[in-house]
């Protein structure tokens, strides 16, 4: 049979089933080819996002103190570019450099001694490359020359310079002003020097930046916004930066032999960075840093990235494998539909002597004719439509779907029972029962799933895409489906006798069918189990990540809001009266290093934070778990002494040591329950956290630390306490900061999309599985209708037939997905994903989401059932059952 003939047959015979298989393969190939590209691109986006988020820190920078020779500065950039590998060169942006003096104080202005009493003025001279291209002249003109002007001490060189309006105002400069400075190094004591010994400046213009985002302004920080000095400091100094041309400032350098601080910056273009070149680029950057001159914060920025990426790939890999498995299942179901339609002609060919081998080859070719064109079109469309790194995964998935169809159609068609009259063999009794081989295969599948789950549970995180972990939910769901398939009839048989006695028809018939011929249920059960299992697994991982973030924020802040200030002069109760505040706890920080006498005779100095433990516990009542510090403080101690915590590195104190703490006149003995990192409310360094009641007698009137529970506004809190808003830390802000992690966000996005798509595919698989059995179901209903079954009874019977199985599968799916998520979450590396890099992270189920997903999939199935009922009701019995000889 020629291929053309097969094509014609596919287009004309059982067209619906062939078109369905083609569509499923085409869509599957598109999704299969597109998913790895899309995910790869999104993960590369996380890399680029990480670099972009690092900002200027990620650029390649060099700094040197040298004589000002503009040609040398350009040469450094050329050398970097020529010495870089192609990978690194592809990332290098346009380099820039600038050179600057240290800040110098005015001596004279326009020849007159500068003397403004309490407000000395200092100026930094900076010469960037391409000054003219970076600024716009508002008044006067750009620096053009070095002039010589007579002064009291002789002629002095005056270098042209420009200044922004803000700096001009702060330094009280005007166009035309000439300035003379003290000697280099004299900035600290501001001692006047002989005028003329140092070149001066002539202000030739007022400028404004062409582009305020130009990195130059980050280098020349006080060029745009002058530094007005620290309030309260004596004297309070005003500092600004003026800009000049490098060729002009060279004259200054020559006159003074000063070495100017010169910096080079070359941005690394994040857009060109991919994971494929990441390792080579970071190795080259390390090599450059080892050379001494160039350095980049990118190395530090990306230190944690590989672990995060591996964790991300672990989670995303699960999604892709699930996705591929579900596409495969859909192709299997579509193949079965086509195989059932082809069964009659296969049976006919057999009666005419066709060998199974030849038939199988013909059917495989038939399937290939149907599946290959859409697979090619789907994969090509994905390549065109979806940006992303190429690779073998996409084409392999598309080819895999074709292979599934080509293998499944012959096998299923040869095994399918023909419906053709005269060749409809009556199944013998043995065929009704599962064969020993089948039982062994099913037992092996269950054992394999158990092994996979165990291996996944023991797998260490950070391994990237792990097929064992990725396949675990699918394997376990499939195995559970098989177990249900085998166990369900025995369970149902137990309830059949009472139903047989009842007058109601539908439960008895539906359950009798399930108990005695459960084969019709196996595909929907497994499809639904996988669908809802995948959704529940995803929900568990996501909920665990979210919980880890939540726990992390509580560990970091210790409350919904934390106020740490030395200037609180009101009672903490004022916060409790603010809108949204539910509870308040106070802490008193004794920042002076208090001597502590250890029972081993040694002593150490520490800060002491005394906290109202009971009140703090009340504040943390909304936390998913008690913060570690509080848990340690409320736990029992070996000695019976009150528990205390020690933070920071201190060698002389160990857990279990008893410490004597003296504050004022109060002395108490505590036992170190735990040595930990920072405790919310303590400053950097070593601190001892003790219960407040132990040092109550020595407490000052105002607290230094306040923990607040509730949804309070930081500005209101700051205003009520009279502190700077920056001293108020909100837990929601900390949570938002951790939530803005680009890798985590991307992973969760990808995860949600892949999980949702998988759930949709699985719902489609469940509906398709129902469609595959629909012919038989309609036939059975038609027979019952000839016995007088009403339309309503038909609908109820269909629902009774399908819904309990679906509900059972949904419940089992929730259990399987959640349990698999809990078991394998360790391998998914939740700490790395959630940004919690210390300690274990508990995994939590997300039952509400799982139930919603299950309800959505069930709803899809129910809609399919409803459609089936309506279609079945319209069908005439005569055309379904076809009395008389077939035509």
């Amino acid at each position: 049979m020629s291929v053309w003939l097969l094509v014609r047959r596919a287009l004309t015979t059982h067209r619906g089933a062939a078109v369905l298989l083609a569509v499923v393969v085409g869509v599957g190939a598109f999704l299969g080819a597109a998913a790895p590209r899309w995910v790869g691109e999104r993960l590369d986006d996380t890399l680029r996002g990480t670099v972009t988020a690092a900002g200027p820190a990620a650029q390649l920078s060099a700094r040197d103190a040298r004589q000002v020779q503009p040609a040398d500065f350009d040469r450094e950039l050329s050398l970097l570019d020529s010495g870089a590998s192609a990978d690194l060169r592809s990332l290098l942006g346009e380099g820039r450099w600038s050179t600057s003096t240290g800040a110098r104080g005015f001596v004279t202005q326009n020849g007159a001694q500068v003397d403004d009493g309490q407000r000395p003025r200092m100026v930094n001279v900076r010469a960037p490359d391409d000054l003219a291209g970076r600024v716009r002249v508002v008044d006067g003109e750009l620096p053009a020359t070095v002039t010589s002007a007579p002064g009291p001490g002789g002629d002095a060189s005056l270098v042209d310079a420009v200044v922004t309006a803000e700096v001009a105002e702060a330094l009280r400069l005007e166009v035309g002003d000439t300035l003379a400075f003290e000697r280099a190094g004299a900035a600290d004591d501001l001692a006047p020097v002989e005028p003329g010994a140092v070149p001066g400046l002539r202000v030739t213009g007022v400028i404004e930046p062409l582009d305020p985002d130009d990195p130059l302004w980050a280098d020349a920080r006080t060029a745009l916004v002058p530094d007005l000095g620290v309030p309260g400091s004596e004297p309070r100094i005003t500092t600004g930066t003026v800009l000049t041309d490098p060729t002009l400032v060279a004259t200054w350098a020559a006159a003074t032999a000063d070495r100017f601080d010169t910096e080079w910056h070359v941005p690394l273009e994040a857009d060109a960075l991919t994971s494929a070149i990441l390792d080579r680029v970071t190795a080259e950057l390390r090599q450059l840093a080892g050379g001494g001159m160039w350095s980049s914060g990118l190395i530090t920025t990306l230190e944690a990235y590989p672990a995060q990426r591996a964790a991300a790939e672990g989670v995303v890999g699960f999604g892709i494998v699930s996705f591929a498995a579900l596409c495969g299942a859909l192709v299997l179901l579509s193949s079965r539909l086509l195989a059932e339609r082809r069964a009659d002609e296969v049976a006919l060919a057999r009666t005419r002597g066709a060998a199974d081998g030849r038939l199988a080859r013909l059917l495989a070719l038939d399937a290939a004719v149907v599946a290959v064109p859409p697979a090619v079109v789907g994969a090509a469309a994905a390549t065109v439509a979806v940006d992303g790194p190429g690779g073998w995964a996409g084409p392999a998935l598309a080819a895999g779907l074709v292979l599934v169809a080509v293998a499944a159609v012959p096998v299923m068609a040869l095994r399918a029972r023909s419906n053709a009259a005269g060749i409809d063999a009556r199944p013998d009794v043995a065929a009704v029962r599962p064969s020993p081989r089948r039982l062994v295969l099913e037992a092996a599948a269950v054992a394999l799933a158990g092994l996979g789950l165990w291996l996944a549970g023991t797998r260490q995180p950070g391994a990237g895409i792990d097929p064992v972990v990725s396949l675990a939910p699918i394997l376990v769901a499939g195995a559970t489906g098989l177990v249900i398939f085998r166990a369900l009839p025995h369970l149902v048989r137990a309830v059949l006798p009472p139903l047989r006695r009842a007058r109601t028809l539908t439960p008895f018939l539906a359950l009798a069918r399930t108990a005695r011929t459960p084969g019709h249920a196996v595909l929907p059960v497994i499809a639904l189990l996988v669908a809802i299992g995948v959704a529940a697994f995803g929900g568990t991982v996501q909920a665990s990540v979210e919980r880890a973030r939540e726990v992390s924020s509580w560990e970091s802040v210790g409350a919904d809001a934390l106020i740490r200030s030395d200037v609180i002069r009101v009672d903490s109760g004022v916060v409790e009266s603010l809108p949204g505040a539910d509870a308040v706890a106070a802490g008193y920080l004794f920042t002076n290093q208090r001597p502590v006498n250890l029972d081993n005779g040694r002593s150490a100095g520490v800060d002491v934070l005394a906290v109202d433990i009971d009140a703090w516990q009340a504040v943390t009542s909304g936390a998913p778990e008690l913060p570690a510090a509080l848990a340690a403080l409320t736990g029992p101690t070996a000695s019976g002494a009150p528990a205390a915590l020690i933070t920071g590195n201190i060698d002389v104190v160990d857990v279990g040591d008893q410490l004597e703490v003296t504050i004022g006149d109060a002395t108490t003995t505590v036992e170190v329950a735990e040595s930990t990192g920072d405790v919310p409310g303590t400053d950097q360094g070593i601190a001892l956290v003790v219960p407040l009641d132990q040092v109550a007698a020595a407490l000052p009137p105002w607290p230094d630390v306040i923990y607040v529970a509730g949804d309070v506004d930081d500005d209101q809190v700051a205003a009520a306490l009279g502190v700077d808003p920056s001293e108020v830390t909100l837990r929601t802000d900390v949570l938002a900061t951790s939530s803005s992690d680009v890798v985590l966000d991307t992973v969760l996005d990808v995860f949600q999309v892949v999980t949702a798509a998988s759930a949709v595919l699985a719902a489609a698989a469940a509906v398709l599985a129902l469609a595959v059995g629909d012919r038989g179901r309609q036939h059975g209903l038609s027979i019952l209708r000839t016995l007088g079954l009403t339309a309503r009874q038909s609908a109820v019977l269909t629902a009774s037939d399908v819904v309990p199985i679906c509900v059972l599968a949904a419940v089992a799916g929730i259990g399987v997905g959640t349990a698999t998520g809990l078991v394998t979450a360790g391998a998914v590396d939740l700490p790395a994903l959630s940004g919690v890099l210390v300690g274990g992270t508990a995994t939590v189920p997300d039952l509400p989401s799982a139930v919603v997903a299950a309800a959505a999939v069930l709803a899809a199935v129910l809609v399919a059932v409803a459609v089936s009922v309506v279609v079945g009701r319209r069908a005439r019995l005569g055309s379904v059952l076809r009395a008389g000889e077939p035509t």
Partner: protein
Amino acid sequence: MTTEPSIVCDNLVRIYQTEGVEVVALQGLDLLVEPGDLLAIVGASGSGKSTLLNILSGNDVPTAGRASVAGYDLLELSGRRRAEYRRDVAGFVWQQASHGLMPFLSAAENVALPLLISGVPRRERTERAAELLTLLDIDHCRDHRPAEMSGGEQQRCAIAVAVANRPQVLFADEPTGELDSTTADEVFAALRRTNDELGTTIVIVTHDPEVAEHVDRTVAIRDGRTASETLRRTELTAEGHERIVAEEYAVLDRAGRVQLPREFVSTLGLRDRVRLELEPDHVGVWPGAGGPVSGSGEPGGEEEAR
């Protein structure tokens, strides 16, 4: 005493639409069946007999005409009344016994199924199922599922299912078509027993001339119309033996039309036009002018229809 006929078909028409082509399966068929009849409907493939069976069993709806079974007008049935009709009035036995049996139920459960649909109490269901299984001689298969029964047992079980609700009419579509002759005899005996002991009117559609010989009345359908009827009766011979006498009649429809047997037409070369002549006790049919003349040898080639 006159009894109302079980089945009345008057000028029954059924037109199918298949891929845009209209097929007239029944074109004005008339049929009367009396209560308790055991009737066979025969006809060539495509003659319309299965269409008729589908309509009479309530599985299909006629396009025009009148079809009434046990007082149910089959053109006017609502969905609920149609279900009631299928449940209480008409039973159906399929050519393939597997069509009529639920494969996952035992024989007893299958027989009880129509009673369950009707809401009959369990005790009554059990008794009725046992009674029918015994009547049809398959009580040993009570707990067997269809796959565990022979073809004949399956078909007898299907008959038991069909008559479980005590229908007034039982329709059987080639009930012995897939069975060997011995098994077919068993099944036919079961049908006859059902007819005799339960008084159920039975209409059998069949190709099998042997089946047709087992019934008292055979209706032949041709081109969607009733073509002829054969009535059989048992007579005693002079030697005192029973013999079956079969007489075939052409059917005169309400419009006065008669279908001549095909062999009559071909033998006399009748086509297009025939000449009729009314005689005192019969109607004569002669070939029309211009047609070939052949016949019984009588002057003018005269052929008579009585």
